């Protein structure tokens, strides 16, 4: 492995989405933006829904849409299969996709459908923006029993967020 690179893999429950030797890994956690370089201190952090960028030693960076997950950075000898001290970054996400694999028309349709649903359910539940977002995503939840409409609203909001993340990431690819 060339100097200044480290092993990056993006794993989802259905498949290993991506694996490469990277120069940098750029993502956003609940505490703010984060850039991982070779030799980064070991860290476990959550990953906020949004774009994750992997800078490769050569060529264009790889962009992924990640819908919430965790990042685990480890350092130790032989972690990348090579000699010497090395860094390994593992990103775990329930749902994630490569920017190139995003179906933009489909995401647009999904966004329109989710928007309509959210509007409708917000009127029913009388809830404002973002209040139901806690029930989904990376924050656990489950302490209060929500009504079926609230659960559905949370799901619709999650759908909407996913569609928005997809479009944002796909847009970044085409404009870059």
């Amino acid at each position, binding site marked *: 492995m060339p100097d200044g690179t480290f092993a990056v893999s993006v794993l989802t429950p259905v*498949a290993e989405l991506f694996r490469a030797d990277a120069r940098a890994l750029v993502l956003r956690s609940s505490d703010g933006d984060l850039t991982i370089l070779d030799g980064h201190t070991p860290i476990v952090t959550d990953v906020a829904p949004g774009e994750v960028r992997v800078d490769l030693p050569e060529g264009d960076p790889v962009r992924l849409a990640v819908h919430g997950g965790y990042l685990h950075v480890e350092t*130790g000898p032989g972690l990348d299969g090579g000699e010497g001290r090395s860094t390994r970054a593992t990103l775990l996400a329930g749902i994630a996709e490569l920017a190139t694999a995003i179906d933009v028309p489909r995401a647009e349709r999904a966004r329109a459908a989710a928007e309509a649903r959210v509007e409708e359910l917000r009127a029913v539940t009388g809830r404002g923006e973002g209040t139901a977002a806690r029930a989904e995503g*990376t924050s656990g939840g489950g302490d209060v029993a929500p009504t079926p409409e609230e659960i559905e609203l949370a799901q619709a909001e999650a759908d909407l967020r996913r569609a928005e993340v997809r479009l944002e990431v796909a847009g970044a690819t085409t404009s870059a």
Partner: protein
Amino acid sequence: MQSTKKITKAMELIAASQIVRSLTRVTANRPYREGMARIVVEAAKGDPTAAAKLLGEPDERHAVAVLAIVADRGLSGPYNSSILRATERLVAELSAEGIAVQLFTIGKKAPSYFRFRHVPVVRSFIGMSERPAWSDAREAAAAVSAPFLAGEVDQVLLVSTRYRSAGSQVVDVRQLLPLPEPGSHVADGAASDAESGGYTEFEPDVESLLASLAPRAVESEIFTALLEGAASFFTAQQRAMAAASDNADELIRTLTRVMNRARQDAITTEIMEIVGGAEALRQSKGA
């Protein structure tokens, strides 16, 4: 009989192709599951006190949630019944100890079994067992985690079939929540952690990280169990259908033999009658 054999043979072949497909998914799921286990180990080391609430054995059990995973369809030999029997036994044991049980099930075959035996089922899911999707696992995980996080139950158990190899699928009971003590099934992760030996940072703090991580780990566990269950189901079905085809073969052979003998008997009798008749005629002429 011939047509029955055709059906069982077809089901056998379909099951065989489904085994391959579900095994591919089991393999594809493995890195995620191991990665998840390593993070939990890391977080548990980071803050043992916070971890104690979500990890290890419960101190005492007053109420337990049990999740049983079976298939939506039958015709798979002992696959469903062995899980259901194990679950029933577990529920009976827990009840005997005076522990209240909340039973959750996945698979169409479960609710009717327990209704017949008057075991109440809190919630049952259908339609996820053959080609489980990640969202299915999330849904089921949310349902079984809720009573634990609300403090209604002290433990969540999972009864499902583990796919060890093509020849061996075992029904086992494992603890979902609190998260099982790491180390037992993450030998690989533990080894690399020992090597790194460094200080790991956490963002946000370990306690909130663990709180959000635990449901994800449960989702991952359930998803893996669903995938392995599907693989085991198809294996069991293939085996059952292969046996059924063999049976049909044998039945066809026996029936053909019986048929032939009956026909032969009829022919022999007929010949005897003709010969007897001819003989009688000859004798009456000669007389």
